[in-house]
């Protein structure tokens, strides 16, 4: 048991994910790509909700901003991906800095309301600013990054563009998750957890709670922006509902489903939810109904999410073995 825990699971999973195109069909590559991006989005939200204990109901704003940033730069200005991708983090993070500055001054329900209000502002702008964002119609036909040079290489030459993009996504998301993991494990991350557990006490020992919360807000926004940037390309288009409040709750559900208390829980939630969605949609068109029921069960039976339930189970098993 203990030895299993010491494996670098993140790395193992990233490498495993790279083999999906080798074993699965095109459809599975598509599905896996979807999951990987949402995993990053959910994990970025977890930095706020799970680690710092700030319930944001407007996290889709930064996802949307990231998607529009990368999309606009690549489509309208033909900026290469290497620049357009970090730009998503920069802009989303910058916006999170402005919004977060006001949000962290509020507590609990008011914090959630203000994040929602800001997200709706972003949505309203994307929805109405036709010249830049394409308004209601969104912005179709975002180009893929340029993979021409890769095709010339031996071994990996001659793949489909979508497969190249999948590899790129896996590697980038793997890097982002590794970074996030480092952040959560760092003294800074520990301090965030302290704030979640007892903000007052953190204040007493001389921590500037608001500044820490703001930093977490900006980081979460920036990583959500990166997820958005990838998703816009993956989705072949960027639409205003990326920033609508129902998207924010979707990602919250993933986070909760996987388990907020653990680092990889939200990514697991993304995986399970997307696979489940794909399965259930083939039986019935009433996916939201099923999702709602799952959510109710989750809230009442497994408030710790899947990862939380697994931990409890493991602990119980261990106790049985020791007894």
């Amino acid at each position, binding site marked *: 048991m203990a030895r299993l825990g010491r494996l670098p699971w993140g790395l193992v999973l990233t490498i495993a994910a790279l083999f999906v195109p080798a074993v699965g069909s095109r459809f599975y590559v598509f599905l896996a790509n979807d999951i990987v991006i949402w995993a990053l989005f959910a994990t970025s939200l977890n930095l706020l909700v799970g680690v710092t204990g700030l319930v944001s109901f407007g996290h889709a704003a930064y996802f949307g901003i990231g998607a529009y940033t990368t999309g606009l730069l690549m489509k309208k200005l033909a900026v290469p991906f290497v620049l357009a991708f970090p730009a998503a983090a920069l802009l989303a993070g910058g916006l999170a800095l402005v919004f977060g500055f*006001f949000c962290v001054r509020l507590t609990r*329900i008011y914090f959630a309301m*203000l994040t929602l209000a800001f997200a*709706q502002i972003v949505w*309203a702008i994307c929805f109405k600013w036709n010249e830049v964002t394409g308004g209601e119609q969104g912005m179709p036909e975002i180009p893929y990054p340029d993979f021409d040079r890769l095709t010339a290489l031996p071994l990996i030459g001659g793949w489909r563009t979508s497969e190249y993009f999948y590899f790129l996504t896996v590697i980038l998301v793997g890097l982002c998750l590794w970074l996030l993991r480092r952040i959560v494990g760092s003294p800074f991350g520990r301090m965030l957890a302290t704030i979640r557990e007892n903000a007052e006490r953190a204040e007493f020992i001389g921590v500037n709670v608001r500044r820490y919360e703001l930093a977490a807000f900006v980081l979460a926004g920036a990583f959500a922006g990166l997820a958005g940037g990838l998703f816009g390309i993956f989705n072949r288009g960027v639409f205003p509902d990326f920033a609508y409040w129902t998207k924010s709750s979707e990602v919250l559900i993933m986070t*909760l489903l996987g388990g907020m208390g653990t680092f990889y829980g939200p990514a697991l939630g993304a995986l399970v939810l997307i696979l489940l969605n794909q399965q259930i949609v083939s039986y019935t068109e009433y996916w*939201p109904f099923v999702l*709602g029921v799952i959510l109710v069960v989750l*809230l009442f039976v497994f408030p710790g999410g899947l990862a939380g339930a697994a931990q409890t189970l493991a602990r119980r098993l261990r106790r049985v073995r020791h007894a």
Partner: protein
Amino acid sequence: MFLFLIASGLSLIFGVLRVLNFAHGTFYMLGAYSAYQFVQWLGAGGGRFWIAALAAALAVAALGGVVERLLFRHLYGKEELYQLLFTYALVLILSDAAKMIWGTQQKSVSRPSALTGSFQVFGATVPHYNLFILLLGPAIALAVWFVLQRTRVGRFIRAAALDRETLGALGVNVDALYTWVFVIASFLGGLGGALISPMRATTPGMDTEIIVEAFVVVVIGGLGSFWGTFLGAIVYGQVLSFGILFFPRFSIFAVFALMAGVLIIRPWGLLGRPLK
């Protein structure tokens, strides 16, 4: 004005139960669908629309009561996240159920026969029905205010909003009271939906739109504050209509900016009180 009907229910729930109810918009939508259904059953004409509207509101209120009794009450005092997500789960379940029952086609209800006419004001045509709604809003506001301020139940509700435990210790059945608050709020939401059905087409998706609008109204006026909600509805209407006049494309933007502004400066709203 009808927005006030919906927002007042939302505000009532927040004021007493301390829960932001995303599903309130869905109750509103169900009110509209049920009104359509009752009109279908009863047939149009005469005073039947009013019976249908009332029946729809009662049906929604009953549903609200059941939901509160069976599920919602287990979440009081839990983290906000769980409450918000539970109400969101309700949105998903109920709106999909509505889609199963009534399909995705638009439904419309004809105006009650007594109010089908219209008249001219300053060169604009105003249907009688719209004027009726305009007058009904304040009337219902007064009625709710009267119940809250002047009756025994109203006193209990206000007391529960201030201090639930003390009220319970004084021998009031707070659990039942909470159910009633939820029922009344659902009734207001359902009534709002039923009354709007002759003015706007009833479609799936109307719930997620209206709830955000109602949030704006409630936040501007003050969460849990009754007259604040009234003021909020008026401010919202003014900003939206004058916004459309001056900078048509960004009037929605202005509304949300106003909401954010209020939250930043006075998080408890224009007429609300700060939470302890």
